[in-house]
């Protein structure tokens, strides 16, 4: 982006304008619902916290619905951090370790497994699964539904009777909800229980105002254009920082090995593709897994430091700021074991599903199609690649076997078209090609 266009586009102002419009519709609008689409790292959590505080300040009794206990705990902590006076109820299940023990330290937070204990509080937060068991309660005036695109339609059906009006916030590019059993018989119905909550909501209420957060504060200038083009072609967004605002460098020069060269490339350009020779492998491809572990090990050994817009002084890149993303749980387990063999501790290793909503400085991704003989709908799913490619603040290294482009060409999408189902753009095939074409410019062949 040139300096001139940066002056015309002020990310802070654009984001503030969008937020103001969202809050206006939420607090003073005439419709029962407001939908907000948020690309990766666009300040969704900040928006939820702000909307919650303003709704509480306006005297509206508020319930907040999130999808996982970790998301709920995170929201409670953020709320308490922003406003230690605001009284918040955390509704949890009666299992022993249902919530983060850190919540017990917060004086403004009431913890309970019984909705009656929390009925008088201005804000009550819980998971959709727990809310579904709340019966015969006085309806809440307002609700905020977080990660609404990852919530299933049937989960919304179970809780929608609890509130009058709602703000739905989510990222349409992440993984769609899924079902372990077939749900084709309802495909095309507006209330298909296996579809996302937002698609059902909008099918029945097309007049609801829809907003979009236009700026990603997480993704660096090197990543936002690609992620936007590949996964959000019709609702483009920009990065909040410009080129050069974020820098990744190493204290020790590279030794010319594959992992070091790909780390150098990633520091330089924000992206790196470490390409292993083409080969069909089992899911837990030992060579690729080891390559992933080596990249992480070298990043730590070489004393990586980051510079960003929030702190001018360079910060050492520690293990807790690095994540490894995979498609399958057994791959994640294999990477964890490989990292343990190399003596690396404290790095997050998880599947795309579990990395949703998380943020790191450096990510290392085992490509979902690496070493596969076929490209199934699971591996082609747009959201999976989008989550894996949009968790980083500085750089993303992808490890893959050669031959993915040919694999894609051999397996065009063949999912049956269902009447009444909105075709999702872009499809995973197109998005995969788009990302691959970009990664090819940052390709480093494997050399131990």
């Amino acid at each position: 982006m040139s300096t001139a266009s940066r002056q015309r586009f002020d990310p802070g102002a654009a984001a503030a304008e969008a937020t103001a419009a969202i809050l206006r519709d939420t607090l003073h609008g005439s419709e029962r619902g407001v939908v907000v689409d948020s690309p990766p790292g666009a300040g969704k959590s900040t928006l939820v916290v702000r909307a919650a505080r303003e709704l509480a300040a306006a005297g509206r009794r508020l319930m907040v619905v999130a999808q996982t206990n970790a998301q709920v705990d995170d929201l409670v902590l953020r709320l308490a951090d922003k406003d230690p006076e605001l009284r918040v109820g955390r509704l949890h299940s009666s299992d022993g370790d249902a919530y983060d023990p850190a919540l017990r330290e917060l004086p403004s937070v009431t913890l309970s497994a019984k909705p009656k204990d929390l009925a008088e509080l201005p804000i009550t937060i819980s998971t959709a699964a727990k809310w579904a068991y709340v019966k015969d309660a006085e309806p809440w005036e307002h609700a905020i539904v977080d990660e609404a695109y990852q919530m299933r339609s049937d989960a919304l059906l179970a809780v929608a009777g609890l509130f009058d009006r709602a703000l739905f916030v989510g990222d349409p590019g992440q993984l769609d909800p899924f079902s372990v059993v077939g749900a084709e018989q309802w495909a095309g119905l507006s209330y298909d229980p296996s579809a996302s909550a937002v698609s059902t909501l909008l099918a029945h209420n097309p007049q609801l105002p829809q907003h979009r957060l236009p700026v990603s504060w997480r993704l660096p200038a090197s990543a936002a254009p690609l992620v936007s083009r590949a996964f959000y072609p019709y609702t483009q967004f920009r990065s909040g920082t410009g080129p050069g605002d974020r820098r990744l460098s190493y204290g020790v020069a590279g030794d010319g090995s594959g992992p070091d060269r790909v780390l150098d490339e990633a520091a330089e350009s924000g992206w790196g593709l470490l390409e292993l020779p083409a080969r069909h492998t089992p899911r837990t491809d030992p060579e690729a897994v080891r390559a992933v572990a080596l990249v992480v090990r070298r990043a730590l050994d070489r004393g990586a430091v980051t510079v960003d817009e929030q702190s001018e002084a360079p910060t050492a890149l520690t293990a807790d700021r690095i994540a490894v993303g995979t498609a399958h749980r057994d791959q994640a387990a294999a990477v964890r074991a490989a990292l343990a063999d190399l003596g690396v501790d404290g790095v997050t290793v998880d599947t795309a599903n579990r990395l949703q909503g998380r943020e790191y400085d450096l990510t290392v991704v085992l490509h979902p199609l690496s070493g596969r003989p076929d490209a199934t709908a699971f591996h082609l799913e747009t959201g999976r690649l989008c989550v894996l490619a949009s968790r980083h603040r500085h750089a993303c290294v992808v490890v893959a076997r050669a031959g993915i482009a040919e694999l894609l060409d051999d397996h065009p999408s063949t999912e049956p078209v269902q009447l009444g189902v909105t075709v999702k753009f872009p499809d995973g095939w197109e998005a995969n090609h788009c990302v691959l074409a970009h990664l090819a410019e940052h390709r480093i062949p494997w050399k131990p």
Partner: protein
Amino acid sequence: MSLLNTLARLEAVRAGRARPLATVRHRHLSERPLVLVPLTTAGEAGAPLGALVGTDPARPRLLVVPQPRDRDLRWAFLADLADEVLPYVEGYADDVERVERTETDPETGAKSKVEAELCLDAPQLIVPSRAGIEYVRLLGRSMRFRRTAEEDPENPYPAPSRVPLLGRWFTHLGERSRVPGASMLLSATELLGRHWATGQSNLEDQHLGALLSWIVPPEGESGAEAALRAELGRDRDGQLLVPPAGPATDPAFDNKLLAPAMSRYDAARSGDDPRAVARAEAAVRELVAEQMRPAWRAVWQSLELLRTLPPGERAEERWTRDRWSYTGHRDRVRAGEPPQPRRDDAVTAAQKLATRETEQVRLDAQEALDDPLVMAGRRLSGEAFAGEVTEIVMGWTESKRPSPRPLVTVATEDRPQLAEGGGKVFRSLEGRPQAAQFVRFEEDRRLIVLRLLDKMGRGREPEPGSVPEKGDRVCWTLFEHDARGGPKLPDPEKTPWTHGGPPGSRAAAPLPDTVTDEDIL
């Protein structure tokens, strides 16, 4: 497909015959199943061509529509089918036991024990293939909304009296067959495919003849050769040696044999010789019967093969759910309720999906607990582990009345995906799950230390047999042994605004395939 199933398929290729995927039978088989082999007419949706149906392998009832485009003949066929199927289905309705079940009062939410009727057994319909199940569902849909002369005297084309009822039962069986583990409507190919792995693809396994060739190949021939012949072999006239198990017929049969026979039947009908009509009809009947007989025999052969496996312990518990389902539909029919609606409303759809997901979890767990071979697959994928108990260290809770919390060390070669931080694991103790908490790995993950949590009685000392002893072989799973149902959904009349409000309200969205201007040219 799990790694173990892939291995079984590779072994099947090498051995030239199918390999077992199970050591027990994972589906209930009725003492007296009703086998139905339907055929449909090419190019005309839902126009049956014929069927073999019955409970006696030696004496099937043959039903044929000599001219499927003649709707009177079609309805006569369906009336005959109803006469054959309904007495069988209704035959289970009156043998009941009284059982107690817990019901929740919709007003107060209070739970109370209610005595209810449960049918002692339920009907079981077996069709040759997956497509056969779809066909039963299609026939159900085409029949259940028809009105009989008694219901609607004005109707110029009333349906024969029992046909709508058959439609309702077929619809019920079709819906029930979508529930994982349900056994009221099963296909022979899926039953065999669950218990044996062949050396061909899943798609090829849809051919019942080819599938059986892999499981019981003829003397001196490999399964692959026999399967290929069953799938593609043709005689001198170009007809398949093993006709497809339906409901679709082979095009060569349609063109060369069936179409000319039907033309002769049509020609005879336009004449005035009743004997010529009877002769032409008999010719069509014989042709269609010849197409169905191999599938009829193959289905019974499949059932015999499956009966050689001992029944899985928990398959009977799942069959009880089928009996409940049968009893429930019997009650709805008796209460004079209308047929199942064309489409599920939002609440019903969500309820069905929730039930099926619960049943899938339950089925996966129960199959593994019933069958060491299935459990081996779960162990291989890190979801379970088995091994020998090497040490027991007694421990107690730190409360006023201490409860036992012994530490159990298990030596295993499995690599369970246990994470530091303590997940729960379960083992089956006399059929009931006992929980333990994962404490730590020792000796490079070869030893696993667990803390037992429950099923040890109320006293300070655990009850005899509730704690494993040194040297015992134990198998622990990371998954739970039973599935919990989900929360109660709102009543359909209280469907929220996000889902279009109650059914029939104006807020409900239009159906996706309504008639538009473009449909009417």
